[in-house]
């Protein structure tokens, strides 16, 4: 009985808002005023962060490895683009939801294929699905515009009130609001009993099944939710850039996404957001060194991260803040509780 209460208390304590989290979001709001000449790159960080958050939901919390998460991003992007081009739903927020739902449906259908089998077949099935969709988008060029992408996307004002401006201020605030709302939802999901059961599955599926967690159903649910998030990220991309071309499905997009998440760290929701910021800055620096060959450095970063070891890297980065934190808290130190290793 007492053990149960401790576990519950711990879960609740984890779910409480810390000052670092509040500072993070305050800084995000402040960025609107601080970097007023950098809205385009900030917008990119926002949707990339949301996209990485969606991968974190399945990779960090449920342990599903995906090499084809761009599939859902692409479906979201094309849905938003098509809705705008054909004037079916002109209002961006509604279109965003519809695009997310379209990706969600795909996520639900494909989840049955993905949760089967080993990590290796997961990798290949997800990769295969993304390639399949790219091929479809390429072949049905009368609908998707093929290699040239969708032409003539124009996005109406948000809620009929806020028009997208040339500098991208509206776009950035819009992305940030969507990101924050979906982040709150994700935070609620992962801290709920449902989210805890996912972590149990990630750490040991067999044991999770033995204590009565319906493993497959939970995995299908989180995969579907993650697809919804990725679809929204894709739709944000299309709405803020007025672009939807074949490269939304590309393998590089899925691979870059893995890098984003790995930079930030998996399994605590902020990883994707921090990773997105770091990744975009890195990409900017690399392209200013060698405009055409920035991918080389991205590759090098990936190789180095793996060779150093992800855990070791995070420990290195987090050493200083943790040290300060411990000094701060030395008076009433509590034993730290870990929820097992991240995958």
């Amino acid at each position, binding site marked *: 009985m007492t053990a149960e209460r401790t576990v519950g208390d711990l879960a609740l304590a984890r779910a409480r808002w810390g000052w670092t989290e509040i500072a993070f979001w305050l800084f995000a709001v402040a960025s609107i005023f601080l970097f007023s000449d950098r809205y385009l790159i900030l917008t990119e960080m926002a949707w990339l962060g949301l996209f990485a958050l969606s991968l974190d939901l399945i990779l960090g919390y449920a342990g599903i490895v995906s090499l084809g998460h761009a599939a859902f991003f692409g479906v979201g992007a094309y849905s938003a683009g098509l809705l705008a081009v054909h004037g079916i739903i002109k209002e961006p927020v509604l279109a965003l939801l519809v695009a997310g739902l379209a990706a969600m449906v795909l996520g639900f259908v494909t989840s049955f294929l993905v949760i089967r*089998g080993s990590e290796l077949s997961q990798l290949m099935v997800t990769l295969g699905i993304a390639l399949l969709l790219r091929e*479809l988008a390429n072949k049905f060029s009368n609908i998707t515009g093929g290699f040239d992408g969708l032409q003539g996307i124009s996005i109406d004002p948000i809620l009929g009130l806020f028009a997208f401006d040339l500098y991208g201020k509206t776009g950035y605030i819009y992305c940030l609001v969507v990101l924050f709302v979906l982040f709150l939802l994700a935070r609620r999901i992962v801290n709920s009993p449902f989210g805890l059961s996912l972590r149990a599955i990630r750490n040991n599926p067999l044991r999770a099944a033995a204590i009565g967690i319906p493993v497959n159903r939970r995995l299908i649910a989180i995969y579907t939710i993650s697809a919804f998030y990725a679809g929204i990220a894709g739709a944000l991309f299309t709405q803020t850039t007025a672009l939807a071309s074949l490269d939304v499905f590309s393998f590089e997009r899925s691979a870059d996404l893995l890098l984003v998440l790995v930079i930030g760290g998996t399994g605590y929701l902020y990883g994707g957001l921090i990773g997105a910021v770091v990744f975009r800055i890195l990409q900017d620096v690399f392209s200013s060194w060698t405009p055409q060959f920035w991918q080389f450095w991205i590759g090098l970063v990936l190789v180095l991260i793996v060779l150093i070891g992800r855990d070791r890297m995070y420990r290195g980065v987090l050493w200083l803040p943790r040290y300060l934190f411990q000094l701060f808290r030395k008076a009433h130190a509590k034993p730290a509780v870990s929820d097992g290793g991240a995958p």
Partner: protein
Amino acid sequence: MTSLFTILFDGVAYGMLLFVLACGLAVTLGLMNFVNLAHGAFAMAGGYICAVLVNNSGVPFFVALPIAFVASALIGLVMEQSLYKHLYHRSPLDQVLFTIGLVFMSVTAVDYIMGSSQIFIHLPDVLQGQVNLFGIGVGRYRLMIIVICGLLTLGLQLILAKTRFGSRLRAAVDDPRAASGLGINVPQVFALTFAFGSGLAGLGGALGAEVLGLDPYFPLKFMIYFLIVVTVGGSSTITGPFLASLLLGIADVAGKYYVPKLGAFVIYTVMIVILIWKPNGLFGRTAAR
């Protein structure tokens, strides 16, 4: 009838090429469960080495082929000993990240050094044009591919089935722990196999430059094909990937000829269906892992 035969012939040539390219990957995956997405980079290395030798240094094509094999095998050996070796026991995610990183680096490095345009190897006159076979004209180059790859396949099969090294390798694939318990030096077997597989990929890259096209994006473009061969064929035998390659080659050529609108769609669908239906591959045995 003629077109059917031509398609079959081209498909077989294509499939055999794919087999030579991918069989190294099948062994890596089967032996160490290592997800090597950078396998195509070794093939690209072989292709470019051959191209530079033939086009710039004037080395005869048939001399350049074995050099491409040896060079890629050496690159493979060095990479295995210096980098890959440390990652065998890491999670598939780490392996995937690492090899994607390698792919990105190799793609941009080759792009930087050789330029991004497609490269052609100057073929000797013997290999150009067509030859009359049973009253039907077939490309000489493709005929040579079939002959070389067929001989290689036979050789591989013989090595695997008859030699001591082959039985060590098979033992290590079946159960690495028991094999090392019996005194088989599994890491050594693996290093040699990795190098040999990389060499074969390099040879395949050199041979395939004419058929598949050779540009810096080769490792990315053909990654999925290699994975299909391995997943469909299973990684426990050599006949599995071989049959899978032939099937894939013929299906791809026929698909492009008869239903060009669908393109690669058919192949991806088939791969996913087979993965769902038989996760260990069409010809694979149920591995005890």
